[in-house]
């Protein structure tokens, strides 16, 4: 698949789709995922009841690929068990890395299978995987902000703080 079909088939439509773009009332898990180098920023929220993801949504900004990927992922995991969600995450990462190639397996991802085409633009892989990484970490119980490349010192109020993680001037 070339980039054009990737964009036109799935991405444009999904990144504009609004049905998954909302905060989740009574969310049990909430995690913000950031790609600092490109500015993609997604807060993923979901509600788990009796091990089932009964509701999920996301808010944030980013490119069409990151937004579409988040929306497609939510379509897939809503109503599924936590274990099933983890299973999909494994397939998704396997597909992106090119380790899983069998159509029967990839088809389990439903519409999200279209993101297999991201391999033609390696520079954009991190956009496609952001929401999936965020989901993986949220399922492990992480909350707050997940920023893979850096951390910042949020210690406002004090006049000047600088340590190994950052500086804060106020």
């Amino acid at each position: 698949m070339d980039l054009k079909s990737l964009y036109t088939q799935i991405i444009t439509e999904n990144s504009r789709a609004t049905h998954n773009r909302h905060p989740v009332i009574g969310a049990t898990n909430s995690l913000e995922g950031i790609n600092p180098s490109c500015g993609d920023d997604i807060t993923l929220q979901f509600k788990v009841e009796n091990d089932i993801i009964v509701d999920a949504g996301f808010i944030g900004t980013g490119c069409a690929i990151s937004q579409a990927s988040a929306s497609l992922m939510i379509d897939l995991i809503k109503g599924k068990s936590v274990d099933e969600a983890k299973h999909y995450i494994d397939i998704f990462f396997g597909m992106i890395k090119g380790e899983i190639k069998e159509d029967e397996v990839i088809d389990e991802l439903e519409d999200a299978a279209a993101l297999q085409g991201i391999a033609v633009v390696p520079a954009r892989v991190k956009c496609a995987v952001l929401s999936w990484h965020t989901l993986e970490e949220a399922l492990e119980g992480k909350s707050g902000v997940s920023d893979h490349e850096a951390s910042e010192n949020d210690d406002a109020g004090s006049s000047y703080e600088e340590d190994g993680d950052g500086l804060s001037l106020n």
Partner: protein
Amino acid sequence: MSLMSDFPILGADENGKRLVYLDNAATTQHPLQVLDAVRNYYTCDNANPHRGVYELARKATDIHEQARATVARFLNASRPEEIIFTQNTTEALNLVASSYGMKYVGEGDEIVISVSEHHSNLVPWQRVAGARKAKLKYLYPGEDGRYTGEAINEIITEKTKVVAIAQVSNVLGLVNPIDKVVRRAHEVGAVVVLDCAQSTPHMKVDVQALDVDFAAFSGHKIYAPMGTGALYGRYDLLEKMPPYMSGGDMINQVHEYKTTFAKPPRKFEAGTRNVGGEAGLAAAIDYIESIGWETIESTEDRLMKLALDGMREFPEVKIYGDDSSAGRKGVISFNIGDVHPHDVASIMDANGVAIRAGHHCAQPLMDFLKINSCCRVSFALYNTEDDVKIFLDSIMKVRSWMGLGS
């Protein structure tokens, strides 16, 4: 006539496809003249400068010092000893901040920078302000992205010790009124640190005419190798500044418990230098001067006008800063409707056009413009009208792929 034939990387590949390279503000490509100079250095002249008494070491030392004289001529410094070689603009600005800033900015003093600064002329000053308990203050532009004399006169006060500003912003592409900044800064006794990373590729920078105290640029943005650059500093200031890094070459005499430092510029050049890169830097400056600023400016200004005129035809294209070509150098930043800049850049890439997308190391400016990121097209002396035409065609392609317009 196009200069593209001097630049091997810009030639057509075996399929007849060529790269339309419009990310020159990030880094430029290299002409054969520069590549040959680097190769020639390592083929014929390589030794450790200043550290050998044999003939080859003398040759390497000569190349090192001749390159310094060439950079001094390029910036019109009053003497070569005012030029310190650095890895890039970032290192040059850090040198000023660490050495001058940490010593001569004190508690309650003020540092003024503009909100459109590149992170490399911003974070070092945050650190100086924090460590020295000084106040960091920002100069803001008007709606058109231009800085006014009134704003400059107001923000710079008797407490200001350093004013650090770019001559041309790497996002807005507008030439800042450095004369007004210098007049006001010197009136209150502050030094002016000029970031010339985006001006040196496109216009003659004359540090004496500008009357700035420090100026920094990167070789890799003016067709020279990565890892080259320089800081200009007024000699009397360099003399009273402490060293930046210390070790070999920057000393006069070392005893067990006492060291005397070399005079500038060597006081600031610790360790073995990138002489091969400097040979390339000197060749790049010779190359620019052989073409001449008049030719470079008229070529680039024509391309800039062509691009701006074409971009204005698209209702969804938003250009940041005053969208006229007057007083603009090198770069145009823009967005296309609500299409994310990374999508724009990927689609353009599929069309063989390289542009930059992101925050351009200027996050405070992105906040000021109330955007997360933007696209940037930037020109160099080898670009052609055909490049601009393909770029404008690519905007059409983005619109159609993303379902904008008709």
